[in-house]
């Protein structure tokens, strides 16, 4: 691969964003850590409580131990994307209605926008970044490509996680897949190909 390939779309935007932010900031201002309104936190709570400021959080992310300082009001989605720079889970509706932010928490598909980062304390979180192993795409990802199970791709990272949670189940039927992706909105309407890809992957991995 040439050096050119190392400039990623996200890297480019992030670079521009940071430069723009620094240009408009006084030196004392720090970059925001959430997309929220940045109000002053209330005074610290009593002993045994977490927050309201950044508090230690430890969990496993895609097989790697993560230690971070996250405020209690930060959602898992915001912490993943904005603090840990894991941007596979997407922000779309931010209300649990679309599934673009789906991750696995201890193997269970969850809307990362509707849970707090501190909810995964001690848990194992898998995002789409964790599906491939050593640069090799997973059986499910390969099946998605084979069956053309994506168009614009914005729902895909969440769709893959809902489908991944299904694999390993014995006797997977079309209805099971359709039910499992009922929380993942695909505006391109690629559902039939997603179902075909999952059934194919289930056969391949069995």
């Amino acid at each position, binding site marked *: 691969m040439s050096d050119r390939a190392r400039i990623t779309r996200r890297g480019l935007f992030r670079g521009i964003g940071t430069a723009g932010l620094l240009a408009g900031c006084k030196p004392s201002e720090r970059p925001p850590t959430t997309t*929220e*309104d940045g*109000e002053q*936190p*209330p005074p*610290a*709570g009593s002993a*045994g*409580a*977490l*927050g*309201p*400021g950044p508090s230690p959080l430890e969990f496993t992310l895609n097989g790697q131990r993560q230690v971070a300082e996250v*405020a*209690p*009001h930060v*959602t898992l989605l915001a912490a993943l994307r904005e603090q840990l720079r894991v941007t596979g889970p997407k922000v779309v509706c*931010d*209300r*649990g*209605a679309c*599934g673009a932010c*789906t991750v696995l928490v201890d193997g*269970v*598909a*969850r*809307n990362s926008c*509707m*849970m*707090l980062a*501190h*909810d995964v304390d001690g848990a194992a979180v898998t995002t789409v970044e964790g599906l491939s192993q050593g640069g090799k795409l997973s059986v499910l990802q390969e099946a998605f490509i084979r069956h053309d199970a994506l168009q614009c791709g914005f729902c895909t990272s969440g769709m893959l996680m*809902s489908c991944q949670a299904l694999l390993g189940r014995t006797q997977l039927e079309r209805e099971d897949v359709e*039910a*499992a*992706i*009922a*929380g*993942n*909105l695909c505006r391109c309407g690629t559902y039939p190909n997603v179902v075909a890809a999952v059934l194919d992957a289930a056969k391949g991995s069995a």
Partner: protein
Amino acid sequence: MRPFVIRRPKSLDEAQDAARERPQDGVLRAGGIDLIDRMKEGIDAPAELVELRGLADETGELMRALGPAGDGMQVGALVTLAQLAAHEGFGAARAALREAAGSAATPTIRNAATLGGNLLQRPRCWYFRHADLVCLKKGGTACLAVSGENKFHAILGGGPSFIVHPSTLACALTALDAQVEVRGAEARTIAIGELFLTPKQDARREHTLEPGEVLVRAILPKAGDDQRSGYAAVKEKQSHDWPMAEAAVKMSLQSGVMTDVRVVLGHVAPIPWRSREAEAALEGKPASAALFAEAAKAALAEARPLRDNAYKIPLAQGLLREVLHRVAGVPLPE
């Protein structure tokens, strides 16, 4: 979301102390689906979240229980809708609860949302959920649905507020004669009907729990071999949508004769709407298509639609008939 503190009590006592200390700005949290939604919308900004999921005492155990209890069944308040939808112990007798749980929201939401949270969630009315509007429920002087957009509001039991009760499980649990156990300063077990408040009783609240009280579990009474039940909803979208109408039915069926009939409609009234008129029309009679049509008519006889929601009358009637046919095993006409 405004910054807040998280507390993780290990026992109910600790949780109640935490909740009592700051009754105004502390809230109890189970799955958090409704709560996070309200915090994101800016209609709630608690200073403290008291987590219930980590309770390690006897109450915590009951809150996670799902299975037989005595000659009935228990469902803990922390049991998720996904667990309910996948549970095989409900049988035909209590199928309404399994079907209701599997119909709500989306699979990923159901992995987080709990029975307790589903029962105690705040209304989904778009005026209530709008941060800039002060409706009756938020201390205003009028229910904004009365003169506003009221396609999804109440046609039965409305006034002064016209919300529809948002809980899908409430509909099924009411049909199944459930009781709920509540623990506060004292423990009490009440019929599920006593958990809900009509807007005439209190327009600003939907349930009767006091600050610091925790809903621990739902208890389903003994079900005979001939008991059966069912639930269905109509929505604009099949997945992730709020019902326009729901129906839950329970009956004992012997040689085609229905007894101990319960008929409950959801998303038509500010509380799960038990239709005693429909129950009376069906009780002790042989199941038939004509009787079901009569019962459905009786169930909606008192309906008073607003400007945009008269469609709910035939919708709820048709849905109720469909569920009655399915539960009683009478083929649909046509």
